[in-house]
């Protein structure tokens, strides 16, 4: 997606926020929302501008979850739900796949009512009031957790429309879970402190939000740099040292995209990419002294990458399930040794025992698609 389109989409998000704020003022019996509630509605949109492409897969919606929960629990009720929806629907402009957009919209439509249900069950609140009471805190936690669970479930269903690879879930769930639970914590914290601290609480909320955004953005930046540098240098290596026409880079690229398509987090996908490149280099017998001569075995990333290669080459030895899975992806991409991995892995107790035939076929199919696009 072009930078211009992204900027337009971000502008739409901010615009929806401002329209939402105006709607709050007009529709709520002519009264103005408290400044802290109004700020909580607008601030995340402004603070998180550009989050989609700066944090690699984590959208502004993931970061604004805490503010949404506070709005729900603060009693903005149906209005808040509508306004949250307006902002979230606007952000769908940044989604590429119509199928993902549709499923995402369904998630956004269903999750808030369920969260509201949890909120009501835990003790509903009046519109635009923030009460420092235990029910508000409990409601924030309940609504937040329900929201997260339903969003995660629907997100999983959205992904399963294309590929369903159950063992890919935990890695993604960890990354998203940390962020989402942080958002629930932020919401609970806001409920705890808003009545006493007012705007100061919003400032605190925003600072933590920015801290999270900066941390995720920093990780994204390092990952991008890592991948691009490895690619550039390996291209140089390939040009001078490897057999002409070996196509190490397209293979590595396909491995990366296969892992991503299967739902692996970016970090693991980069690892597979790196492993693919290294395998190409090592597979060329370079250098003459073998991999151990030049590659540093005490270097964590390369050791991880080499483990993947080793897991693929010698699947009989005991390996962490994570590396076996990545090795599986690597070799599915390379279109070789998949049966060998499967057979040997099934001899020992590994995750492959629990992988259905249809799921394995899905990996092969995804790998083939990604490889053919390279």
């Amino acid at each position, binding site marked *: 997606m072009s930078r211009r389109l992204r900027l337009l989409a971000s502008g739409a998000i901010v615009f929806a926020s401002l329209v939402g704020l105006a709607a709050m003022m007009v529709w709520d019996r002519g009264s103005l929302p408290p400044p802290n509630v109004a700020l909580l509605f607008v601030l995340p949109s402004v603070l998180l501008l550009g989050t989609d492409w700066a944090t690699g897969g984590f959208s502004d919606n993931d970061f604004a979850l805490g503010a949404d929960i506070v709005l729900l629990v603060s009693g903005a009720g149906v209005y808040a739900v509508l306004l949250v929806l307006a902002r979230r629907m606007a952000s769908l402009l940044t989604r590429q796949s119509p199928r993902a957009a549709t499923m995402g919209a369904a998630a956004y439509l269903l999750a808030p009512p369920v969260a509201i249900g949890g909120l009501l069950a835990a003790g509903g609140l009046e519109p635009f009031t923030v009460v420092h009471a235990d029910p508000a805190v409990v409601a924030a936690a309940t609504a937040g957790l329900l929201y997260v669970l339903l969003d995660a479930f629907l997100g999983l269903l959205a992904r399963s429309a294309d590929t369903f690879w159950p063992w890919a879930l935990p890695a993604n769930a960890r990354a998203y879970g940390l962020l989402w639970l942080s958002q629930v*914590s932020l919401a609970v914290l806001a409920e*705890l*402190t808003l009545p*006493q601290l007012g705007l100061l609480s919003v400032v*605190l909320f925003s600072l933590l939000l920015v801290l999270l955004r900066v941390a995720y953005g*920093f*990780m994204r930046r390092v990952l991008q740099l890592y991948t691009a540098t490895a690619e550039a*240098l390996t291209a140089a290596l390939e040009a001078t040292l490897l057999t002409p026409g070996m196509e190490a880079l397209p293979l590595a690229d396909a491995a990366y995209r296969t892992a991503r398509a299967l739902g692996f987090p970016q970090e693991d996908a980069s690892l597979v990419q790196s492993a693919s490149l290294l395998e190409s280099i090592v597979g060329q017998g370079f250098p003459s002294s073998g991999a151990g001569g030049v590659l*540093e075995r005490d270097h964590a990333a390369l050791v991880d990458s080499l483990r993947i290669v080793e897991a693929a080459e010698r699947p009989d030895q005991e390996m962490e399930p994570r590396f076996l899975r990545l090795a599986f992806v690597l070799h599915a991409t390379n279109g070789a040794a998949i049966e060998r991995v499967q057979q040997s892995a099934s001899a020992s107790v590994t995750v492959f025992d629990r992988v259905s035939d249809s799921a394995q076929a899905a990996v092969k199919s995804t790998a083939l698609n990604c490889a053919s696009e390279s």
Partner: protein
Amino acid sequence: VEESRPHPALFAFVSVLAAGAVLALAASWSVFPVDPSPTLLVLAVLAVLAELATLTGFRGGDVATSYPLTVAAMVLFGPTAAAVVGILVVVAAELWRRDPARLKGVFNTAQSALADLAAAWTYVLLGGPVVAAGRSSSGLQAAFDHWPQFLLPVLVASVVAVGVNVALVVVVLWLSRGVSPATSLRGFGLGVFTAIHLTLGLVGVAVALIVVTSNWIGLLVFAFPLVTARQILQNSARLQHEYANTVRVLVRSIEAKDEYTRGHSERVADYAVRFCSHLGLSDAQTERIQFAAMLHDLGKMGVRAEVLNKPARLSDAEYAEMQRHPAEALPIVAKIPRTEDLLPIIRHHHERIDGCGYPDGIEGDRIPYASRLLAVCDTYDAMTSSRPYRPALSRAKAVDELESAAGTQLDGELAAAFLDMLDDESGESQQ
């Protein structure tokens, strides 16, 4: 702190420091006695846990994640409580790491106590409120209504904490390893260190605020986003470390075709980092120059191995081929994002100050500063390592050659500064 046979001066210094810490703590206790409370206990436990989860290798250093909790103890319970929390943190960390160096443990504990006491007393003397001691009649909220009265003391206190910590470490490094104070100070990255402490000091204020308004339950809730951010930053720091290693390994692979220059880029990068530190350049500048140094000879891939490894003088055609290498690196490096500023550094690293270099023949200040710096490191390493056409020069001979090249081939001031650095390092290693 060297443990095997501590120097008498070092032993005396640490002893005096420990005695001073005990006396200072006793004096502080007489004014602000510590009244144990569940909240203080929770703060201390969280501080210990935070210390065990210290963010390591972030921007070249460690971030003391327990510091905000020490600041919160200072704001809520006063200087003595802050020092006690600090001491508990250090002792717990020493026990956890099972570091056998007892003198080092004593030093770390005394250093923490003195730094925390100095910072906390600065805070109090500047009018910062101490909530539990009744120094603030209407509590923390009132203090926030007049935030300059509150925030300024915390920020100044954080600067004092950094100052005391750094000063004590500089002295102990000088006594234990003979590292000159100037070298130690340059290696600290004081700017980043101070900025991190100022930020963590403000987080400490937020912790105090949460404790006052929401007690320790709020504190636990508040901790979750912070722990997440710490986890993400730790992962990023690890990735950055791995990134640097990957670049090193790939460059080493590329250099493998030239048996004489194998490891050259790594060594030049190492010289460049030390030289940048010696010149007092910022961490960001150092990082860029280090990266440029790693990649500066990438263009040699385009030079035939027989030319690179030729044991005799190069013909004109061969020399012309060799001269293309700075420019040939550029298309490769340009593919890496955010490397625009590296391209001129790499392109001009073979220019001469008198204008007789290549590829563009520019002279003097027209050559980028980083290229001139890199040229000094590159030349020194080239002279001190073997080449197909000559053996490695001795260090003394290389120093002579560097002196004679100053002002014609190399930037005179930078060459002199490089020689100063070698002298300094030589002196330190002898000590």
